Structures are given as structure tokens and as C-alpha cells.
């Protein structure tokens, strides 16, 4: 089987390259070089003129805010997307990867956040999937397991048995199996997209060790992470992307955490957000959590008062959405107490959430917020009809009012009855989701990424709506990855990290301070 890897033979030459030690001065030949790479989606430019050079035996950290273009860049390297401009050079000559498999076969492996493993198959069967060794036409199981075991041993992973069902491994071990699979393709470049995002603290050590071991064998590693600690622990070089632009590449030792965070954030959004009313004083406590937790989050204490906007900031996967899901009964809290308007509230299902006058505008409006093939009106009535049918008659009269006050595109009830939601723009779709919840007259509304993927005008409308709601005494819990939005809109900012509240900041705080708390740099 020619595809089988014998790492033992390959390593010495690559290690020699690194033997002169300081890789920056001796500059071995780069394995992968991107020049002027750019990418557009539907006319929106998401990456512009990116240069990136990876050297063997080095860990190159790629950092930036959510939406900076890191994922797109990784997908270009992985062969998922093709760059619109610029070139990818592998060992010198320019190459193209029509499919991810081509990239993999060329030695460029990518470990994405979603696992690309079959949970019901063994470690060995996963690692050599599509390349199973054969003997007389049958799969040579002895060799399959022997090869896998050797690969695991070589990487210091003797604790994982080759016949183990992948689904029974811990998340960290599964991540490691993915990396082992990449190594088995003789990968010389391995890029990892937030490999520690799903790992518990004590599991991270396993990954660190593997990354270092691979680096020492001369593999070039592109490491995407939000956690500054990890970047300084592992990276030789750091590249910062911001809004699709390449803003910095420097040796890790030369960029302090302060400068790094400042480079990642900081934009001018003055005048875009509606001002806070000067005389507003928050009223009584509408929603309170004390020590709330479940398998995903823990020790959550928070209060949202009438007329107040409290933001949950934090990185993707930090547990912000999970807190919202706990409040609304999607993944209920199993510990701690929750009160709504001062009354203890047991919210075990979303239906109970609605009955407690809670509302949750979900993160993904297409799959969780809307029945795309149904009319605007049907969508707007959905929650009312399903949960509060008796109140429906009285309140349904409000639907027209809510739709028109939100300036949803089909402005008459008749038009709202005829228009299917799927034909509306993203902004109008979001307004329909908002309308659906507003007609239930919620006392607490949770907005999860309410402005994601909508245009500037619609964003402004959402911000105005938030101000209107608070003026009417609604409590708003805002979850957002857009720091300018959080800073400008929230009265208080709770920063979530690793499923816990890492700290609280007043509204108007410095974005860098939020990032520092969110990444653990503070």
C-alpha cells in the first residue's frame, strides 16, 4: 500500500532543517505560501490580498475577531473554497486544490471544528478510511491495526487503542484521532481550526503535546485560536486578520498580548448606534439566575432589569448561546435558581418559557426561527397560535401593527398573507422573527446574534427596536459577537468564557477589555 506513511523515514531530513535552531534567521524553504489571496461571496469581499507563509517545524497562529476571515482562509488552504485572486504555492510551484481530497493527498491536512470521523467505527477504521490495507482482496485487519498502533505510538498516544470505537472516546481524544488521520496522509502542513474550543482544561494538555511533537518532526502547523494563552504557549509566528485584511505578521515573541488585542479590534462606528435615553433608570428585576448550570455552563449569576439591555459577550462556543438555551428551556438548567419577575420559574421546555413571558430570537433564523415555506403572517402568528391560543384573538389584532411598526417589506396584512418568508431579504426575515415574538408581549427577550447577516439599514432598525422595547419596560438579554454592537447598546456587559461568567463590564467599555476577558488574557 503505497499511501501508507512511514513517518520514521521522513522525519530526519525535516528535523535537520530545523537543527540550526533559529528558524527565522536561517529561513528554511517555506512549505506553503499564499500570495495576494482574495475571496468574494455573492459580491461581498471577505478576504483581500492575504499573504501567509508557513515554514516546516513552525507553529503559525492565525488570529482575528469573529468574521475576520480566518475560517475562509483555512477553507481555501483545505481546498473547500477556491481563491478568486492570488496563488497558493506548495514547495515553490503554484498549485490548485479542486477538492479537499486533493489538498489532503498533497500533504495539506485540515482539522475542522466539526469532527470528520465516523463515531461507530474504530480508530483504525477511521484513520485509514478509503485506504484500508489489503491482502488477497480482503482487508488486512492485522496490518490495519498494527499500522494505526505504530502511528499512535509514534505520536506518544499509546493510551488510545486502535480498535476503540471513536464515539466512546473523549472529545479531546477524537480531536487527536483527527490529527492522527491527517498525519497518516503524510501531511506536512496541518491546519487546525480552534482545536481546543470543545476541550476541557485538562484535555488541552494532550493536544499541546501532540502539536509540539508534530512541530518537532518538521510539520508546519497553522493554528487558529481565540485563546491568547494558547497562542503564546505554542506559536512561533502570529498573523492577525481584521475584516478580511491582513494586518500583521510577526514573531510571537515580538507581539505582546496588549498589542495583539488592539490589532484585532478597534474600529470606528461612532454615530451608527441610537443613543441611550439619558433619563432611563432600570426598573425592577425581570430575570434573575443564581448559580444556574447544566452540562454546558455553570455558576451563572445574572440579573436583567426592566428597561435594561444586558449583553452576553464572549467567543463563539464560550457558552453564551447555552445560557440563553438554559433560560428558555431548550437545554434547561439542572442546577441553581431562576426567577422571572421575582417569582421562581421552572422552565423545562420552550413552551413553558413562552408562558413565563420569555422570548428567544434564535441565532440561526433559517433553521430555528422561521418556517421558510410559509407566509409572513403565518410565521408571525406561530407562537401565539401554538402556545397562547386563547390570547390569540385579542393579540392577533396587534400583528398588523407590529409588522408595520417594524416596517417589514410586505406592509399590508393581505400581502403578509401571500408572501412566503423565504423570498424576503435577510433583514426582513429577521424582522418577521422579531414580530413573531413581540406579539407575545414578552417581559424578557433574549436576542441571539440579532444582526448577523443583515444589511446596515436592518441593523439600525433592530437597534432602534431594542431601544423602544426597553423604553416600554422590557428586559433585553443581547448575545452578540459584534463587539461594537455590544459596547454601544448594552447597559452592562457580562463576558462568558468556558461556560462561566468571566467578568462584568459597564456599557461603553473598551473592546479590548472585553476581548481580554473573553480570551483569558486578563
Amino acid at each position, binding site marked *: 500500500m503505497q499511501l501508507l506513511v512511514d513517518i520514521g523515514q521522513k522525519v530526519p531530513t525535516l528535523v535537520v532543517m530545523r537543527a540550526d535552531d533559529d528558524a527565522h534567521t536561517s529561513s528554511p524553504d517555506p512549505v506553503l505560501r499564499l500570495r495576494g489571496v482574495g475571496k468574494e461571496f455573492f459580491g461581498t469581499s471577505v478576504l483581500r490580498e492575504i499573504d501567509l507563509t508557513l515554514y516546516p517545524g513552525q507553529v503559525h497562529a492565525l488570529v482575528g475577531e469573529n468574521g475576520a476571515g480566518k475560517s475562509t482562509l483555512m477553507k481555501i488552504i483545505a481546498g473547500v473554497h477556491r481563491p478568486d485572486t492570488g496563488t497558493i504555492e506548495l514547495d515553490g510551484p503554484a498549485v490548485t486544490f479542486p477538492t479537499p481530497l486533493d489538498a489532503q493527498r498533497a500533504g495539506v491536512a485540515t482539522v475542522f471544528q466539526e469532527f470528520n470521523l465516523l*463515531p461507530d467505527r474504530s480508530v483504525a477504521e477511521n484513520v485509514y478510511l478509503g485506504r484500508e490495507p*489489503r491482502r488477497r*482482496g480482503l482487508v488486512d485487519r492485522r496490518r490495519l491495526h498494527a499500522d494505526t498502533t505504530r502511528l499512535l505510538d509514534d505520536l506518544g498516544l499509546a493510551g*488510545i487503542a486502535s480498535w476503540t*470505537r471513536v464515539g466512546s*472516546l473523549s472529545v479531546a481524544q477524537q480531536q487527536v484521532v483527527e490529527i492522527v488521520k491527517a498525519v497518516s496522509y503524510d501531511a506536512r502542513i496541518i491546519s487546525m481550526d480552534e482545536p481546543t474550543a470543545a476541550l476541557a482544561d*485538562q484535555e488541552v494538555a494532550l493536544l499541546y503535546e501532540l502539536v509540539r511533537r508534530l512541530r518537532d518532526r518538521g510539520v508546519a502547523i497553522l493554528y487558529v485560536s481565540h485563546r491568547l494563552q494558547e497562542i503564546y504557549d505554542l506559536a512561533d509566528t502570529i498573523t492577525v486578520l481584521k475584516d478580511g485584511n491582513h494586518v500583521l505578521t510577526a514573531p510571537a515573541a515580538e507581539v505582546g498580548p496588549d498589542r495583539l488585542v488592539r490589532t484585532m479590534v478597534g474600529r470606528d462606528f461612532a454615530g451608527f448606534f441610537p443613543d441611550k435615553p439619558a433619563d432611563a433608570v432600570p426598573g425592577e428585576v425581570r430575570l434573575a439566575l443564581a448559580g444556574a448550570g447544566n452540562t454546558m455552563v455553570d455558576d451563572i449569576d445574572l440579573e436583567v432589569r426592566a428597561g435594561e439591555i444586558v449583553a452576553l459577550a464572549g467567543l463563539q462556543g464560550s457558552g453564551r448561546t447555552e445560557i440563553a438555551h438554559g433560560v428558555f428551556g431548550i437545554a434547561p438548567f439542572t442546577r441553581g435558581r431562576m426567577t422571572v419577575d421575582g417569582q421562581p420559574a421552572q422552565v423545562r421546555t420552550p413552551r413553558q418559557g413562552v408562558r413565563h413571558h420569555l422570548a428567544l430570537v434564535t441565532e440561526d433564523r433559517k433553521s430555528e426561527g422561521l418556517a421558510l415555506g410559509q407566509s409572513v403572517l403565518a410565521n408571525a402568528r406561530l407562537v401565539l397560535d401554538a402556545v397562547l391560543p386563547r390570547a390569540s384573538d385579542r393579540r392577533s389584532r396587534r400583528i398588523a401593527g407590529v409588522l408595520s411598526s417594524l416596517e417589514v417589506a410586505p406592509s399590508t396584512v393581505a400581502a403578509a398573507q401571500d408572501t412566503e418568508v423565504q423570498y424576503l431579504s435577510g433583514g426582513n426575515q429577521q424582522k418577521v422573527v422579531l414580530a413573531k415574538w413581540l406579539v407575545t408581549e414578552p417581559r424578557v427577550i433574549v436576542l441571539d446574534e440579532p444582526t448577523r447577516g443583515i444589511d446596515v439599514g436592518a441593523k439600525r432598525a433592530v437597534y432602534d427596536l431594542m431601544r423602544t422595547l426597553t423604553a416600554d419596560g422590557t428586559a433585553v438579554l443581547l448575545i452578540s459577537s459584534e463587539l461594537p454592537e455590544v459596547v454601544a447598546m448594552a447597559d452592562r456587559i457580562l463576558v462568558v468564557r468556558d461556560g462561566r461568567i468571566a467578568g462584568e463590564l459597564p456599557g461603553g467599555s473598551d473592546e479590548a477589555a472585553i476581548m481580554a476577558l473573553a480570551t483569558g488574557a486578563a
Partner: protein
Amino acid sequence: MTISTGSTGSSSTAGTSSTAGTRRRYHLGSTEIVYLALIGILLVAGVLVAVQGGNLFAQQNISYMLTQTSLLGFVAVGQTLVVLCRSLDLSVGYVVALCSLIGATTMAGDPSRVWLGVVAALAVAAAVGLVNGLLISALRVNAFIATLGTGLIVKGFLDTRFKGPEGEVPLAFQTFGYTRIGPVPVSTIVMLLVAAAAFVLLTRTRAGYHMFAVGGNLDVARLSGVRTGRALVLAHVLCSLCAGVAGLLIAARFGTGNALVYSYGLDLDSIAAVVLGGTLLFGGRGSVVGTVGGVVILAVLDTAFNVLDVNPFFKDVLRGVIIIAAVALYARRQIDPASRRVRFGARGSVPRGSDAA
């Protein structure tokens, strides 16, 4: 076996301690559960029959049981391959009927044409499977619809072309239907050989490995270089071939081909047997050994109901209840443990290594 018991895999590496909430327990594999259920059903049925003064394990009952097993067995073994690929074949019942007719009419009572009849029937079966597989993999028609469609086409052909039993199977071939070795019919032995071949396919060949991969996660399979279309087409061709063999068995038993065989409900029974056998209806997990267990369970029930003289309509009610109960039982076990795993180490609730203190 292809299904490993959960306990084999729980070795943990140095860096990862098990979290507080997950207790390590011995988990039976699905296949073991199927056979435990079979033993349980045999005991209960045996006792019930004995109470009425009968003997479930009398030779004639055992023979009836095994005869039932072979017909559904062929179809269900083929269906297993398809279901493992996260597909489905609803055309098998019609293929069985078609092949019984093609076999019988080609043989036309002439012992020298037996092999010709066998080859013709299997060739037609393979062709139907090929069409099914291509519709699903190349044209991306939903498997349910594609195989329902080809099934209807075959049914229409049968209904217009054949008015009743047709063709004649020479005595030499009828032995396939009737001969027994002790209480064991030859057809059952052939069925077990086919099942063994499928077992080897799934556990010892790349094609089988790839069927598991295709059913487990199509994208993962494709990104790993598996030719997913090929695995799917192969599964469908083999499934239809198995149905073809079942058709030949019918012809051998009846001495003629018969279109009305499609009303036996082999299509849904085979899916029920596959699922009873512990194969996940969403593909990616399962085994032929389990399916054979599922087939035997259904045959035992059928035999017991016959001996106990249960009202035929109520028989179906009982079968339905048992199938649903079994699958509900599996569903409780098959909730992916990974999805329940603690995502963030809740500090304090997680026992740390002693060095942390």
C-alpha cells in the same frame, strides 16, 4: 463482529480523566441483545405453547420456523446492506415475484434449463438493483421514492403480463424448496451461506467498510476518498440479487412462478427484521448477524402464533407491538454518548489529578 461492545473502548489516556457524571458500565452490544431477546421469546413462546398442551420445538414446528426463516432471510440480508448505507429498498417484494416468474418460465419444466433460469432471474434482479442504485447515487432521488417507483414499475409489468401462476419448475430444482437435512431445509443452509458471505463482505472487505462509512457520514466518506456512489450501487445490486434468490426459492416451492407473491409484505418485513436485528435505520451501524437474529425472531413469533391459533388480525397487532417495543428499546441505548458529554470542564465538579492539589 462489526459492532463492538461499548466497554472495549473506554481506555483513557493520561491527560483525560473520566468526568464525574459518566459511570463506566458494561454495555451489551446490539447483536447480543438481539439474541438475548430471541432466547427470551423462545422461552415465553415455548411455555405458552406447552401450557396449551403443544410443543413449540416439535420437528414440524422447527421445520416451519426454519422454512419461514430462509425466505425472509435472503431478503433481509440484502436489505441490511442497503440500510447500512442509509438507503432503503422497497422494491424487493416485487423483485421476488418477478424473479420467481422469470426463473419458472425460463426453466419451463426442462431440467437442462435450470441454470439458464437461475442466471436469467438473477440477471434481471441485478439490473433492477443497478437501476435503484444509480437513481439514488447519480440522480440523487430519495431512496424511498426511487425504490417505490421501480417497485411500482415492476408491479405494473407483472400485473399486465402475468395473469396467474406461470412457468414450470423442474423437479430437480424443486429440491431447493423441499429437501431437508434432518429438520433443516437446504434453503435455510443456503440462506446462512449468503448471510456468511455478507458478513465477510462487511467485516473483511473494503467495499463493506465503505458501506459503513457511506451510511455513517457521507461527507466524511467522500472526503476520505471513498467512492461513495460505488458503495451504494453495490449495496443495491447485492440487495436485489438476494431478493432474486428468494424469488427462485418461491418458484422451487410452488413449482411455478407467481406474481401475487408481492403481496406477502416481504419489503416491510425485511426492514422490520433489519431493524429488529439492531441495525440503525439511519445507517452506519449494524450487522448481518443481528439481522439473521431478527429474521428468526419474526419466524418464531409466526410459528408460535400459528400453533397457538391466534386470530390472524390480532397476530399483526402483536407483531407490530413487538417491533415497536424492540426499536424503542434500542433507541434508548443508541443515544450517542458523545452528544451528552460535558462540554466544558466544570471546575470543582471534575476530579482533577492528585498533582493539582
